[in-house]
């Protein structure tokens, strides 16, 4: 039996999921110039939220998946307001948000009983909502300044560590699985000795739908136009009366939602959800946006399928320990031959 068709299939659905993940990366980089290294942690939370919805709340998958996507999107918005925005402009709302964050940490630093912990979490949530509301209405900022390029990246590393630690505190470090029968997993035999599972079809379909939807959103809608305007020039957008902070929040919501979708889908497909699951995909995603051309949507999709195929075929025809060597070899090759990435232009038109 020839393994090629099956391996192509393996690389296709994983490339699709990787593309969804990396698009979120590219969106934030394109509009803000921030390399958000907490993206992998948001991905992990997407999977955890899907797990929570299905196993604890008992929701069916078709509700749990959108809920996890929305939850991950909100998480990314919170992340932006707590970790990135105060670096540009600090408001009273930011301080309330920070207070909420510290209360949240307090919920996990002591072994509270379950009721006390829920009460503390509720207080943190109320503080966060108040903080967000104040932040959205404030016109007077406590300070405003140009953000050094490195600062948000360092902040995102910190945010990533916090998100992973919170997941470990709340769910433990062990791998979790969705209850059996959440989604049919019986393999379907196709002609040519190909085997595909319904989960893989779901991953492919949802990923392709998300890619098309994102493209339409950026090209056709007013929020899409605003995102592209901010990406082109934040200052000009402000002069034109665009609410830049709101656009940035929307960008983060989309980015987080995409990460959450990828996390929930792959968490379901591998049926192994654990706090460190973001690490692996984070490096792959970063490679994808660099190879694709930073900020280029089309480039990201092509590069994701390329990296997905490389990861599968290096194992299929050579050796599993060489897998990452090939992926990063391609990265170095692209950086040497075409530093702007496959689809980037020297002066990149971003997003």
């Amino acid at each position, binding site marked *: *039996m*020839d*393994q090629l068709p*099956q*391996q192509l299939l*393996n690389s296709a659905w*994983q490339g699709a999921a990787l593309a969804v993940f990396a698009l979120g990366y590219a969106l934030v980089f394109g509009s803000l110039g921030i390399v958000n290294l907490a993206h992998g942690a948001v991905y992990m939370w997407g999977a955890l939220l899907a797990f929570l919805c299905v196993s604890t709340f008992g929701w069916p998958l078709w509700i749990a998946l959108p809920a996890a996507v929305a939850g991950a999107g909100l998480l990314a918005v919170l992340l932006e307001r707590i970790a990135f925005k105060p670096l540009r402009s600090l408001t009273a709302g930011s301080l309330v948000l920070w207070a909420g964050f510290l209360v949240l940490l307090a919920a996990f630093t002591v072994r509270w009983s379950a009721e006390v912990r829920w009460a503390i979490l509720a207080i943190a949530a109320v503080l966060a909502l108040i903080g967000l509301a104040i932040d959205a209405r404030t016109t007077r900022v406590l300070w405003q300044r140009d953000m050094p390029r490195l600062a948000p990246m360092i902040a995102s590393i910190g945010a990533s560590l916090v998100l992973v630690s919170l997941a470990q505190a709340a769910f433990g*470090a*062990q*791998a979790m*699985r969705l209850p*059996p029968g959440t989604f049919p*997993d019986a*393999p379907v*035999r196709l002609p040519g000795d190909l*085997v595909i*599972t319904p989960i893989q079809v779901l991953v492919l379909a949802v990923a392709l739908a998300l890619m098309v939807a994102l493209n339409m959103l950026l090209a056709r809608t007013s929020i899409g136009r605003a995102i592209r305007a901010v990406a082109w020039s934040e200052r000009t957008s402000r002069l034109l009366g665009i609410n830049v902070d709101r656009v940035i929040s929307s960008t983060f919501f989309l980015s987080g939602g995409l990460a959450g979708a990828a996390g929930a889908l*792959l968490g379901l497909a*591998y*049926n*192994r959800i*654990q706090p*460190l*699951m973001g*690490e*692996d995909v984070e490096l792959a995603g970063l490679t994808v946006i660099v190879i694709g051309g930073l900020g280029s949507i089309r480039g990201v999709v092509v590069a994701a399928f390329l990296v997905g195929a490389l*990861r*599968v*075929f290096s*194992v*299929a025809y050579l*050796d*599993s*320990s060489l897998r990452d060597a090939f992926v990063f070899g391609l990265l170095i090759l692209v950086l040497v031959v075409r530093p702007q990435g496959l689809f980037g232009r020297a002066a990149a038109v971003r997003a």
Partner: protein
Amino acid sequence: MLIAAATAVVLAGCGGAPDSQPGQGNEIVVGAVWSLTGHAALYGTPQKNAADLAVEEINASGRFGGRTIRLVTEDDRSTQEGAIAAVDKLTSRDRVVAILGPTLSNSAKAADPIAQERRVVVLAVSNTADGIVEIGDYVFRNSLPERVVQPNTIRTTLSALRYKRVAVLYGDDDAFTKSGYDVFERALDEAGIEVISTQTFQKNDNDLLPQLTRIKSAAPDAIVVSALGEEAALIMTQARQLGMTMPIIGGNGFNSPKLVELAGRAAEGAISGAAWFIGNERPENQKFVPAYRARYGIDPDQFAAQAYAGVYLLAEAITRANETTPAAIRDALASLRGVSTVLGEFSFDEQRNPVHDPVVQMVRDGRFELFR
């Protein structure tokens, strides 16, 4: 909380008889070093549960006349430093006659030499790596090493399944899965089985479909896997996703309730070698399993069974020794032959390694059953 409990036990002990010589008074002081926190807490916790249970049963039976065993438990936090500190404290402050543990082979290699130097008996109940009993003549173990368990798995499955060509899949970045692979490879070679494909993976890999697809295209009669618990579950799940139905034979990682918990239906048919089988019909086991379940609310695993057997072996040696000094207990332990335990008819060989029959088990309807 566990640390607090351990400390409380220790403090109580110090207050009670600060200068008591081992073997004097009404208490025989035995130490235990378990990994109760850290990454190996998963293994150390059932060990502590089972050892506590065994000591209570022995004390209630009045086996030593008016005397009882007092177990002083220490947590090594899954680290070598923790194990060294624990063994040092048990041998110098608590003056124990014998120590059970430590949980991890790595910790044992660092800490056991201290006990050997101070002539205190160590009975390892979960160390399977090489170089443990070689530390010295006071170091014993009752845990069958992989090189005894896995060849038995191959022999037993071979006679039932009659496979000729197998594929091998193992984690090449972990000392345990790598040494498990070495053992399998030797056993397959000795049995004259042809290995037609050898694939590797790394810790935390989520996607093993490329490796499994490659194995599938080679069409082996069976797959032999050396993996830890989580990866074992992943392999079972993804192999079934690819529609692979050949027998899958695993090492230690497959011998865990975690396999069924994580892989669910996909774990059906997974074959693994083990030192202990929960359904064993020996009277000791028929008493142990329900007692453990009643007290802790979950099924015991192999770690629990080996720790439980360890306490009983020690008690047997103390009974046979004419005085409760470490030297006398050491000699009695070394001469134990054919003792009936939850693990089976148990003996120590000349090197203080365990001798008993390993088992081969298979997952059926979500439970481990004896492979026949």
